[in-house]
């Protein structure tokens, strides 16, 4: 058992960190958009092959999960989970960015307005389609993604030839990593805030009531991170469902606390906290939400017990 990256993974993550460093600072979108889609970073990572890392034996899904986590902690938005966890392993010919439709084909879905292809995970299997011009209608949304809905029912759906349960697991791991990363991004922003902001003559972060809840959030986020990484190595077991269920279940209290401690600043679009918390709030419901995923994890774990 080894909790540190191997040599190739370490080199991969070093370069990744160099590429994302300029994108750590945040800016208000000129049009007060709820998200800050970064064509520049998304394109640079694609051009350098980062989103294909899961297919490299020495990098694998754990590297993709770490990348997704780190990218999700940024205030800018790129599309990583679907591309690096699902597309890279099961539909590598698809153009990206990729949107994933979970459930009904007419669901309002993140990334669709910027996506060049779509993967649909349904009860009858997994299908993919390239999105032609005009195939998506953008939808205004509170969730900090470009959100859209398919505007046509005439897509050329192709069956993805792989075990749909395993594909679903890869998507679960991607979502778990993205949620953990969003929560980490939000936590870091709030920790900075409560260190800097003084009330009652001292930093907010010196109040025990705030310290303990942020410390508790840290424990959950660290747990979620490692659960996602281990699940990345164990598709087809109970672990991906448990990893996603864990972070979905934990996120409710964490998101509440983050907004609570950011106070009124976190209610504005001037501060980016909402970019992390409203992505989290949306993902909380994905693949059936916490109860469904935890329940499926339990039935998988004790199927034969």
């Amino acid at each position, binding site marked *: 058992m080894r909790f540190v990256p191997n040599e190739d993974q370490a080199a991969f993550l070093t370069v990744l960190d160099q590429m994302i460093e300029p994108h750590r600072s945040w800016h208000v979108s000129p049009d007060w958009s709820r998200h800050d889609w970064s064509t520049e970073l998304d394109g640079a990572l694609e051009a350098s092959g980062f989103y294909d890392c899961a297919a490299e034996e020495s990098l694998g899904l754990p590297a993709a999960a770490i990348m997704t986590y780190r990218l999700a902690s940024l205030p800018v938005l790129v599309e990583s989970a679907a591309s690096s966890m699902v597309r890279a392993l099961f539909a590598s010919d698809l153009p990206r960015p990729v949107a994933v439709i979970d459930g009904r084909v007419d669901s309002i879905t993140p990334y669709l307005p910027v996506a060049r292809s779509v993967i649909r995970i349904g009860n009858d299997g997994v299908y993919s389609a390239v999105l032609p011009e005009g195939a998506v209608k953008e939808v205004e949304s509170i969730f900090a993604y470009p959100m859209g809905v398919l505007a046509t029912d005439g897509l050329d759906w192709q069956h993805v030839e792989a075990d749909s349960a395993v594909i679903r697991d890869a998507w679960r791991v991607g979502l778990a990593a993205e949620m953990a990363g969003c929560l980490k991004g939000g936590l870091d922003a709030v920790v900075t805030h409560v260190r800097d902001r003084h009330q009652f003559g001292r930093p907010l972060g010196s109040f*025990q009531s705030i310290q303990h809840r942020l410390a508790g959030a840290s424990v959950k986020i660290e747990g979620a991170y490692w659960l996602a990484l281990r699940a990345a190595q164990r598709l087809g077991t109970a672990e991906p469902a448990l990893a996603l269920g864990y972070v979905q279940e934990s996120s409710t209290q964490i998101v509440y606390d983050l907004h609570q401690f950011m106070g009124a600043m976190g209610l504005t679009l001037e501060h980016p906290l909402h970019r992390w918390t409203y992505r989290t709030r949306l993902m909380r419901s994905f693949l059936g939400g916490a109860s469904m995923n935890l329940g499926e994890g*339990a039935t998988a774990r004790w199927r034969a017990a």
Partner: protein
Amino acid sequence: MDFNWSEEQRDYRARVQDFLKRELPSNWGELSRHGPGSREQTEFSLEFCPKLAEAGLLVPHWPSEWGGAERPAWEHFILGEEMWAAGEPRGAQYMNVNWIGPTLMRFGSEEQKRRYIPQMAAGKAIWCQGFSEPNAGSDLAKLRTRAVRDGDDYVINGSKIWTSYAAMAEHCFLLARTGDAVGKAGIAIFLVPMSTPGIEVRGIPSLIGHGDIHETFFTDVRVPASARLGEEGEAWSIISYSLANERVGIPRYELAARVLTSMVSELKERGRFDDSVIHARAGSASAACEAARLLVYRIVDARSRGENLGVEASLARIAVAEAEQAVTNFGLDFLSDAFSSDTHPEYLAHHERAIVTSIAAGAAEIQLGLIARQWLDLPREAS
């Protein structure tokens, strides 16, 4: 990055399991039901641990100089998982293995090492930990037990409380105040034979098994200066090292995970594991156990590479406490009758362990404070 056990590690676990199967008596369930601090289990440990030592399974990670085999930190944890999940047949001696022995190796005088460590490595030493006092629990630096230098000796007066294993222990790892310095700076550690005149131990009936909680009184207890571990005023830095080991020393997640599996099997037998609410709760408890396991494993992995992580132990401790609570609450919600019968003594045993975790070795709130300051770099609360 690899989250799977190696073949060598799997073989090692199988070896430990075989040993337990062979050496635990048929009445072990009955014998161990009152917990590691009970008289029965302590006496058993004095037969069992020498056999473990003989098989090279008591202190495999210790240096060969002190009876170990320099085996990887992972083997120590695999061993600990199997022992704790089996009801801890090492009794109080797990403390020697996890932190008292390593602390003596690092900070002890040559005489102290020679005097105490071989007995620990042979599985024949019972120690207790004299830390908490009636007015110094979480605020340990306020302890009042005092050791006054008198020639070549110290004379100790004061009292300790909630002392595990004190009734059966031969030695106490005792904190006492020396000199005039206040707070952490004024504390020293003494290695005190419990047979020294002036020590009185009284048991306190508790919720957590027999023999786990005591009051210990020290009245004019005279020990030689050579019983002091380290220098006067060094205790805090020494016990910070010790407690970092103790906080994750017991693989509590392993027992929690196994008890959860037992609970699910019981629910299946009763035809009740077909309920989506129960499925979700079982999944939630299982995920909590695995999150705790991974946060502990991260520390073990660092140790295996020669690194010593600090505040990460506090994160792990919180996660472990949450996991244990999740499992015991799952059982209490869906199988409460089994906590009052003999059918599954492990549910009650686990419950008794679980309600301790967030209090012992630094209460959960202490750990959260450490995380806030050392992990999140938040400012200390104004006094």
